[in-house]
């Protein structure tokens, strides 16, 4: 009668069911990866794979940062500025007395703190996330510009080589981040973020600390975005106060591509990660095929609309039959 036969497997059954809903997306991602490997067989070497995942890594992080909030029923327009600020702080603190570890702690702390403050404003003062993060993006950009008015700063070469060299460290880091997310989602608070996004009143009545869940979601989102900034700084070897700008749009686009909905509680993080991979592959392909950056914009606009419209149209087409 029950698909869950032995008690230990409930978790696995739930996970399998979530995967089943994403079958189509997995197929598309696989098809694109195969196509990519055929076009650019270099990806199959260690170096090529490393470079590919390094391009993907920051996008994956900011997509998680965005999807986390969208699942909670919010959105953030402060992703790009947070990435920039992360990069700037990394580039300005790593030559200090505490060195690289100090820099990493400073970046992580800044991301968490800014996220928590934004989250507290949204949760406790009941202001709409889209406007608060919009205002926040100005403030964060301002701070980044004051810390480092023009690109520069210092990132130790060994760090750049380790993170963005010829080894797949970025990929391993991504795996670590994903495992951490899985563990977090298996905590009551992690599932609470989902529940509070879909049905905040119901979650509150069920005893989920809805406000705390929101603040934690914003804080984690800030952390992920700032860490993406640190990685970008390591990649480019310096800090740049506006380097994060494209990430705001891309994070939304990737999350939407991965099937994360706008109303909260709809979608999965694994879908969002697939979305970021898909977007990353598309950007890479266009870059390698020599498309001007302009064409990327046009294609991106079409892709975003298509990603949302096609499933919707399919749904209404099925309903009509």
């Amino acid at each position: 009668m029950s698909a869950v036969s032995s008690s230990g497997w409930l978790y696995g059954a739930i996970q399998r069911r979530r995967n089943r809903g994403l079958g189509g997306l997995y197929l598309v991602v696989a098809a694109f990866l195969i196509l990519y490997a055929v076009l650019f067989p270099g990806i199959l070497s260690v170096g090529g794979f490393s470079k590919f995942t390094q391009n993907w890594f920051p996008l994956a992080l900011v997509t998680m940062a965005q999807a986390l909030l969208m699942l909670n029923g919010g959105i953030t327009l402060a992703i790009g500025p947070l990435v920039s600020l992360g990069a700037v702080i990394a580039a300005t603190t790593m030559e200090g007395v505490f060195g690289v570890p100090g820099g990493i702690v400073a970046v992580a702390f800044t991301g968490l703190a800014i996220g928590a403050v934004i989250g507290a404003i949204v949760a406790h003062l009941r202001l709409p996330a889209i406007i608060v993060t919009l205002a926040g993006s100005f403030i964060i950009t301002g701070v980044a510009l004051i810390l480092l008015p023009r690109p520069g700063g210092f990132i130790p070469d060994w760090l750049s080589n380790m993170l963005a060299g010829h080894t797949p460290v970025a990929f391993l880091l991504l795996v670590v981040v994903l495992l951490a997310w899985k563990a977090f989602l298996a905590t009551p608070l992690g599932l609470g973020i989902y529940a509070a996004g879909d049905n905040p009143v119901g979650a509150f009545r069920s005893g989920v600390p809805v406000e705390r869940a929101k603040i934690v979601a914003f804080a984690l989102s800030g952390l992920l975005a700032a860490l993406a900034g640190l990685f970008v700084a390591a990649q480019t070897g310096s800090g740049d106060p506006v380097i994060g700008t494209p990430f705001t749009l891309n994070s939304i686009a990737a999350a939407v591509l991965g099937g994360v909905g706008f109303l909260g509680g709809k979608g999965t993080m694994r879908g969002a990660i697939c979305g970021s991979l898909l977007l990353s592959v598309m950007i890479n392909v266009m870059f390698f095929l020599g498309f001007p950056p302009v064409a990327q914009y046009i294609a991106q606009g079409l892709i975003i609309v298509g990603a949302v419209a096609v499933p919707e149209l399919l749904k209404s087409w099925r309903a009509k039959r």
Partner: protein
Amino acid sequence: MNAVKSIFRNPPLLTFVLVALVWLVAGLTLPGFGAYGHLRYLLELAAVIGIVAAGQTLVILMGGIDLSVGAVITVTAILLPLISPIWDPTGLVGIALALAIATGIGFLNGAGAAYLRVPPIIMTLAMATFLQGLLVVVAGGSAVTVSNPAVILLGQARPFGVPSGVLLWLVVSAVVLALIHRMPIGARFLAIGANPLAARLSGVSLTRNTLILYALSGFFAGLAGILVLGMNRQGYVGIGDPYLLTSIAAVVLGGSSILGGRGTYAGTIPGAILLVTTTALITVVNASPGWRSIMFGTLILALLLISGREARR
């Protein structure tokens, strides 16, 4: 005491009082701020934001958001000089064409939202991205100078000492206020913004109103684009970018709910003036770009705390 309370309950009035206070204090403390020429200049700048925000107000009242207004302004400002026919000495044909294009872009946004069911925030964001790419292809990244006489007249003329941009804003304000408060379509927009499903089951057509709404937003953004072009005499890629966030900020400062269903353009008008004024003040204190950005963000946040609080769920 009661008077103070009623001001706090009436966001448009609150914003208006704030503007008056800021003008009064700045006029008394800063030399030159209160001069007619300076105030006129502020209103001229506010007119552009106000006109873009006219469309944005309508969209937000209906529960959507238009993130493509900046791109539409840029498109209009760049295309108008290119498409104004030489045989037309008045320049009106060029304006009509540019407005038609802007309205058409808005209509496409509406079609995406209505027929493809793409959420407006995504549809308009994608449209903005798309246009950004298209523009570079069309204009090649260089600035274009305008020679269209009607546009220059609009941007530079001052009948009776009042900039024609401000006059245009007055007309737009009258039209939009009438649309919201005196015409059935305004009530329909508000009903859809508050509860789309109930509105639909009450016989309000979502498709039709969505199409009209985004077409209107495109039209107003196009109008603002023409005004900006006339004031600058040049169109270039990125000219419209600052107006996206300011248009949304002006609506929110005016006390309209960002979630739709509640608000009025009467609040957006002082909201636009307040934004321009404070930006001007930030410039006066001669801060670095970083500090200016921080002040601007803090300002929006602070004003939100005063006027934009959403009701409990």
